């Protein structure tokens, strides 16, 4: 694998894949597989499905590299757009075959051992993760792309195949739903009195507990 290729831009690597260079595919995979895998895992909550989607995405890249339009959007947006379609297909297929696993059956990877000091934090993250997974797919996509993968509105719009305004409105709606889910997942009876928000008192407290 040449040093020049290792320094090449993503666009050049995709051109290399189209030209039949196996090293280009390997390099692009090493650079971008984590983003694809994270997107798929955030969307599904299932590591095995995320692995399958990641493989599918790069197989599609291998096949469709000559149709990639450099400069139209970021490579991450292109990959996430492919991953989005793969995730949707698998979720729809799985939904037909069996009911989705319940929250406590989802296998989100444990990244670290659980030292006592991290238990509370891990719990808060797990609650938020379940809240994201409980969102309808179109809103989950917006949160995962914009808030978890930190894509720009423009790139998210490209990945989702919609207008930027649609991304913003979905994200806004998703975050409102997320707040409602968090309330449902972790009701805090005793803290209602301490909030100053008259419109949704327990929501504010729940956020403070889950987000801090």
């Amino acid at each position, binding site marked *: 694998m040449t040093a020049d290729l290792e320094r090449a831009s993503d666009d050049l690597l995709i051109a290399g894949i189209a030209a039949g260079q196996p090293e280009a*595919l390997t390099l692009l995979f090493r650079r971008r*597989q984590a983003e694809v895998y994270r997107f798929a895992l955030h969307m599904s909550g299932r590591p095995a499905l995320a692995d399958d989607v*990641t*493989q599918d995405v790069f197989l599609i890249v291998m096949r469709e590299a000559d149709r990639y339009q450099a400069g139209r959007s970021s490579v991450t947006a292109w990959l996430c757009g492919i991953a989005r379609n793969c995730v949707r297909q698998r979720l729809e297929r799985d939904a037909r075959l069996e009911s989705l696993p319940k929250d406590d059956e989802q296998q989100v990877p444990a990244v670290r051992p659980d030292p006592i000091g991290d238990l509370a934090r891990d719990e808060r993250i797990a609650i938020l993760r379940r809240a994201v997974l409980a969102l309808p797919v179109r809103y989950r996509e917006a949160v995962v792309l*914009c808030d*978890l993968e930190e894509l720009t509105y423009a790139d998210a719009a490209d990945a989702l195949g919609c207008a930027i305004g649609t991304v913003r409105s979905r994200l806004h709606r998703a*975050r409102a739903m997320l707040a409602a889910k968090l309330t449902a997942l972790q009701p805090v009876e005793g803290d209602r009195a301490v909030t100053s928000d008259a419109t949704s008192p327990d929501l504010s407290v729940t956020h403070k507990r889950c*987000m801090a």
Partner: protein
Amino acid sequence: MTCARLRESVLDLARGESLPEGVVASVRQHLADCARCAAELERQRELTAGLTALANDARSWRASPAIEARLQAAFAEREAAAAAPSIAIRRARRWVSIAAAAAIVALALWTGRSVAPPSGGVGPAVAAPPPPAGKSRAAAAASAAVGSALPRVDTPRSIRTPRASPARTTRHVAPRPVRSFEFLTLPGAAGLPDLESGTVVRMEVPVAALPGYGVEIAPDTVKTTVQADLLVGQDGQPRAIRLVGAEESSQDTRSRR
């Protein structure tokens, strides 16, 4: 009304998006007077902090290492398959190329036909494989139209140009035969690679279009349609054309006058 108008700007502010100074100023001015929107901004900031923690927690997630090896194997297999396409694929590609070339030439000839349209038909027809000349009505009619001066056309598929009927020849006022030939190189074919192998495709061609291919025609046969063989090379590009016959008889042509 202001709350609804600034809702997305509040969201952008909570997410740390860069906003124009004017927008930020108007949002801050509104927040100073609206406790509800101020609380919403605080809530959204807390949500952003939680989502950031979730994103950071996922930074170390990686796909299975086995995927890379599987992709490399799939890539190598694909490249090997592309380097040695099957005979069937090569044959299919060749016929697709031939069909495409025939379509291009047919379109060009149809354009010529529209200038001086013949009495029947809406466009040239491509016949592949060509029918035996002896059983072809079109070929027989062509024979009558072009007269006895039309020399025999030697084709690799034993297609012979029908000889003219003496009776019909006598009906010509001034027989001006279309001159036939062996394969004539098409304009633009000179720059193509050498012909290694080819396929003959039979087509119906308006005589009016023939001058563009270097074929002499007689004035009284301008509106006839003749059959021609198109020689298509191994790359699907047409190389040459030769005349076989005409669709309309001279009698038919004369009767329209």
